[in-house]
């Protein structure tokens, strides 16, 4: 029981962490609430399914094709659909909703609304302290750890990371320091979509693939970023594991009421917001200060 909860929390939390970090990055830098974020996650999962099951490629070439393709699509969507209307906040929000609906409907049209699955990328078990863990789950954990550390290093150590953080703090001053803000935002969108695609690739064999698979992760990601504080990477990671713990415990401890997992996750968020209106590690933005 407890080992199930721990493993489930780590795997689900890892996937949510990847998604939430991307969402948080794009919100922090471009102030865009990107509802289409998990849409790219869904596209990558469907792409993997298409290449492995329909075309018959191996897992490695499929991943090599799919991850850059989805990343490129994210950058293009940002460049041609979101960037031109960035000053209209409501319009941007609606645009991202429309984008994700287009994804959902085109996936329904191409693959029908059935549930699909793909085989594990690596099979078998490993014994850890007497608990047998699926190798696929270990793969998820490993990839999540590597990717998050890589993102952390990029943000903390490289010139690009400094540019990203400067843009998040104050776009005008960043421009004065010689940083090209539009280019930085496009790179941010690229990183965010890349994280979503990686999350999809590692988790697609565990979760089922269907046209509405974007909506539950989206709700959870929104809960996580609010819980952790919008725009805060640390908050997104910690929030992801808190919410995953809540969700997995509800699913395992009371299976007949698994619909309540969203309720409990949201309750956790509401409690945090009532105690700390800015989230756990909230970044207060100048124009949003009370």
């Amino acid at each position, binding site marked *: 029981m407890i080992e199930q909860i721990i493993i489930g929390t780590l795997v689900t939390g890892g996937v949510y962490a990847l998604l939430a970090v991307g969402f948080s990055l794009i919100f922090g830098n471009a102030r865009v609430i990107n509802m289409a974020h998990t849409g790219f996650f869904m596209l990558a999962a469907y792409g993997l399914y298409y290449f492995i099951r329909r075309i018959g490629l191996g897992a490695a070439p499929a991943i090599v094709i799919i991850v850059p393709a989805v990343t490129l699509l994210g950058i293009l969507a940002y460049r041609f659909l979101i960037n031109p209307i960035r000053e209209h906040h*409501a319009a941007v929000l609606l645009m991202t909703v429309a984008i994700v609906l287009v994804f959902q409907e085109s996936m329904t049209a191409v693959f029908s609304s059935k549930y699909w699955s793909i085989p594990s990328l690596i099979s078998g078990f490993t014994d850890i302290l007497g608990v047998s863990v699926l190798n696929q789950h270990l793969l998820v954990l490993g990839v999540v750890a590597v990717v998050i550390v890589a993102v952390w290093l990029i943000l903390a150590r490289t010139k690009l990371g400094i540019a990203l953080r400067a843009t998040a703090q104050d776009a005008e001053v960043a421009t004065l320091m010689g940083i090209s803000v539009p280019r930085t935002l496009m790179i941010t969108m690229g990183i965010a979509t890349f994280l979503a695609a990686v999350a999809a690739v590692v988790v697609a064999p565990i979760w089922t693939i269907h046209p509405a698979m974007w909506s539950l992760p989206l709700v959870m990601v929104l809960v996580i970023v609010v819980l952790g504080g919008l725009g805060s990477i640390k908050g997104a990671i910690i929030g992801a594991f808190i919410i995953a713990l809540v969700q997995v415990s509800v699913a395992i401890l009371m299976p007949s009421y698994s619909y309540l997992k969203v309720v409990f996750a949201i309750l956790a968020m509401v409690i945090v917001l009532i105690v700390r209106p800015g989230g756990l590690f909230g970044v207060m933005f100048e124009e949003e200060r009370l």
Partner: protein
Amino acid sequence: MLRRLFKDFRFGLLPVPGRIIAIVFFVALFIIPLIDDSKYTLFVLTTSSLLVIFAVSWDLLSGYSGQVNFGHALFFGVSAYSVALLHKYFDLQPWATIPIGTLVAVGIGVVTSIPALRLRGPYLSLLTMAFPLMLLGLVMAFKPWTGGEFGIPGIPPLAGTHVGEYYICLIVMTVSVLIMWKLTDAGSKYIRTGLIFHAIREDEIAARASGINTINYKILAFVIGGFFAGLAGALYAHVLGTVSISYLSMTMSFRAIIYVVFGGIVSIYGPVVGVYILQTLLQFAGQAGQNFLGQNQILIMSVIVILVLIFMPEGVAVWIRDKIERECPRCKLTNGFWRKECRACSAPLR
């Protein structure tokens, strides 16, 4: 009296093309059943008029007072579910269920405004989005009472005939839109709410410094928004004869946002235009799923929304209004597009 009406008509209505279009449109809606009273046509128009109330109430709450609510389906769904439960367990008729359902939605509006007062910006939006999802979880968890994903069927219709139902909804819609238009009219001499909502949205600190109790007005915005969304939800449950979890879904909340932003946010006519283009026209063009358009309705709607947002990010209705009307730079009076100088002060129009 008659002379005053004629004067209003001559100088307040005729020179402004936008108002002529609005009047002609509403008159057309009232005479449509005389021309075509097929069940399908009237059903589409009836549901559209209820969605208009829903969308306009979102515009009032989120567009005007700036409390961007991602969970407007909460009011709609709560009211619809109260109607269904009242009918199922107490066997109440529409004249009783609709007011009670609406009041429940108002109560929920007050309750949601409590956390909303502490938060602002994206935090508020995301928090409000969570509420209908919580309720959705509860509906699914208590299946024996709420019917789970199958909902509650068998709610009686509003009136015996479809024409009667159509007219009830149309009249309620017209009256609600007029009330909300008056409530949000910033230029009104008698009702201050419009001006105050604008002030709260633009700069809350300045509004407070001017002696406005912004807390009360924010709660008022939630109450009004909840009232009209609840009214729409209660009527919708009666018109469709069933409630289901789709009333509380994220899609329902986003439908309100789609209509409003498509038509033009912070304008009462924007959502009306949005609903009648995106909902009604697409339904008729789709012929109830008979052709390609009908089977891929959401896809086509999303593509239209994307194209419209790129080319007219202010919204369709605002874009059209800017094409056919011009505001006098000196006296702020609206003029038709054909005029070279203002009709009141004859200042040249650029």
